[in-house]
């Protein structure tokens, strides 16, 4: 049950709010009115409570904005019983109240920014949306402006496994204060960002946060595994074939094509095309030149030894400048190890 100032705003603009629902039902034939009621109560209300506590005179304006966005989200079945996940509700319930001090000045932008980002991270295979939500929430008190929020969200999305944002995130990191940046990267407070940046650019498998390095990358003997069989919810209908390129690896699995990008924070698969796989620029780094050796199922790189959990027969090793990818006709996954 919605109560308090938010309920009063809704009551005061009842006819206007009802008219908007009618419009939404016209736009979205499957519009679920019950889902709207639930979303208002469980997700919009906490945001409005935070707004009331922080800047009550902005409540009416923000309520109107939030209501319009809520209609859109319900209409697109991003919340409610038919939604694929609860991610939108989690953003509204946990994250938006934490950013209320930014939200009151730019409600549409903040709501759109956080909701869209969470949806994008969630739908990216290999990215860790829970980590992003948690880290965004923890850092919230230190974010005081919309540009800082944008940059923070992007850097933390990269840390949450969006490897394709690596260059963009490092570029935008320069706009943030060093102290905040070091905190975002879990680096020592006495570190120098320029030094960190230089090292990260030289080696995508290095990061200042030793916990992350251990948690997500090559420290495990199986390496970082990407893919899996489509029947188990993975991306590959057949054991994949690879070609190395400057971005990562072009991947072919039956009639599907991907671009695999990886770094210390994670690996992601992007849709690609037959043309890119067959005609895209490739790197011809040989295994020997990359310092990789494989005896039986023991993979030796410059950084150490890894026992491959695969038959030695028909193993395929493909190297780019920083990574060796291991595939086999006996697996649907691709194992990645830093060179």
């Amino acid at each position: 049950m919605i109560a308090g100032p938010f309920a009063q705003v809704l009551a005061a603009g009842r006819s206007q709010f009802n008219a908007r629902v009618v419009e939404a039902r016209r736009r979205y034939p499957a519009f679920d009115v019950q889902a709207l009621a639930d979303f208002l109560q469980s997700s919009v209300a906490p945001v409005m409570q935070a707004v009331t506590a922080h800047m009550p005179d902005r409540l009416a304006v923000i309520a109107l904005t939030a209501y319009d966005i809520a209609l859109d989200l319900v209409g697109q079945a991003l919340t409610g019983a038919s939604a694929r996940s609860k991610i939108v509700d989690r953003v509204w319930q946990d994250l938006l109240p934490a950013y209320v001090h930014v939200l009151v000045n730019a409600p549409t932008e903040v709501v759109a920014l956080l909701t869209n980002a969470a949806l994008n991270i969630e739908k990216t295979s290999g990215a860790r949306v829970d980590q992003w939500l948690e880290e965004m929430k923890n850092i919230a008190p230190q974010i005081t402006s919309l540009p800082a929020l944008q940059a923070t969200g992007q850097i933390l999305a990269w840390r949450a496994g969006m490897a394709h944002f690596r260059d963009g995130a490092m570029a935008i990191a320069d706009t943030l204060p060093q102290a905040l940046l070091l905190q975002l990267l879990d680096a020592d407070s006495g570190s120098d960002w320029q030094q960190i940046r230089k090292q990260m650019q030289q080696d995508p498998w290095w990061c200042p946060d030793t916990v992350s390095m251990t948690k997500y990358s090559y420290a495990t003997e199986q390496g970082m595994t990407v893919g899996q069989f489509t029947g188990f919810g993975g991306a590959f209908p057949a054991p994949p074939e690879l070609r190395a390129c400057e971005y990562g690896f072009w991947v072919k699995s039956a009639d599907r094509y991907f671009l695999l990008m990886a770094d210390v924070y994670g690996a992601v698969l992007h849709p690609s095309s037959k043309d890119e796989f067959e005609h895209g620029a490739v790197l011809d780094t040989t295994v020997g030149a990359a310092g990789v050796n494989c005896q039986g199922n023991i993979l030796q790189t410059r950084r150490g030894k890894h026992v491959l959990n695969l038959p030695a027969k028909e193993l395929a090793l493909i190297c780019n400048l920083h990574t060796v990818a291991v595939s086999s006709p006996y697996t649907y996954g691709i194992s990645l190890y830093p060179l």
Partner: protein
Amino acid sequence: MSPFNIFNRISQAPTNPKPVVKPRQFDVASLYQGPVQSGTAAVAGEQALDEKLRQAYFWIVNNAIISPHYDIEYNEGPSQTYAVGDSKRTLTLPSAQSYSSFILLPLLTFVTRKKCLFVGGPGRGKTASAILMGVLSGAPVRDVRRAMQHGHPQMTIADLLGNPLPADLMAAQNMDDIRIAWRKWLGMRVKIVDEYNRIPTRTQSALLTVMGDNYAEVLGQIFECPESAWYLTANDDQGGGTYQVIDALRDRIDVTVQALAFNPRFLNDLLVRIEENIRPEELMPRELIFTEEEVDRAGEEIRQIEVPPEVRHRLEFFCSQFELFETAGAQFEYMTKDTARLSGMDWGQLVAADNGRDRLKDLGCQTMNGVSVRNLMTLLIFAKSLAYFRGNKSVELDDLRQVLPFVLLDKLHPDIDAPFFSRPENAAYKTDRLGWLRRLFDLSNDEFNRLDLDRDDPVGELAAEFGQGLNDVSERDTRARLMRIERLIGDRVKGRKLYGHLYDDLLKLKYLHQRYTNYLKWLRSQ
């Protein structure tokens, strides 16, 4: 843009995505693009016009037209088909993006500035669709409605084109002094003539001048019309209006589109439209409006679309089927249906005299005329525009197959008494002209494949050789080429029946022979 501007949503995703090999660029800002509009989205760069055209199509399909029929079918790989009813008609679920001709053809007409005729019963949305095209050109709905010409039996040339100013009529000393109050519609970029088959014959002739030559003339005064797309409607394509449409006017129409019946399963959408008092043409998003320059540019881009030789050869082969009428001419060049028609002889008598060929198999026997140059040009430009609309750089055979029936619908006339139509499985083609034309093209392609003309086309090879030019071709080579032509003609005519494509091949060989003969004569004179 408010997310609640009803009807104002346009597809933001590519409407027909194509794989393109280009350097990968990942913009970190894309993290914040999604279903919730922030209002601070970066201004998009200049939009590709083919994408804009597709957005316009999908806006109309999804918002303006309630029950679109997807009759322009494309497939990528196998499609699901069902045999339905006693007649075992095929219902196909296309496996690729398919389109509704009722919207697509008018759109292609708009962007190529051609002329489109809507036919169908009353209340099927013909006029509404034409008005949408007018709005797409940027004209206010009110102006589009006011500029629409409604055909009626009392319509005069002055009603259609304009009146001389009465004061000038009284005071003028010569014709040049008479000013004309031209009708406003003549200056519109989209011209709509509703129920054109109700216009009297004399006024139709004035309309023909405007449609054909793009100017209007009253009392010696000329009004030059801007390049424009034309939309005409007729309740009955067969001339069931008050007046018979003159042939020349019919011939100026580039495509004919049939308005299909409303599917009552969509009645609820209609109800919403009534209850909310919505007129889609009044709600067209501004982003979809095409400026004059954009239409010019799109037209230019369409002309650049390639027609690959393998597609062109099939069109050549198809068109060559129809003009031959062996018994109509004594001289080889005049053995055409045109000769027969101009003679005024009874068609049935002439056909009865034409024997010896397999009249069931010969596609030429199914028609009473051939394909004109104007039709061919229209066919090529619409095939190009369909390929452009689909985001391709070259025309595919399927593009040609899909537009051909709409271009030739009122141009290639069937001979209903032909043996083909008397077969039970072909009975429906007597009434379904679009289906017949598509079937005709398919049969032509089957024959093309049977003859293996993709790989074995000696006439094409000779033409290609000639196309390389005659510079430095020696007398000896010229004689050799002449010999090859003569030998090929000898082979072709040996004990074979004369069919349309063979007739055209022989005429082409005669042309080449003549060109080489003239060249040889010139060589000798040097």
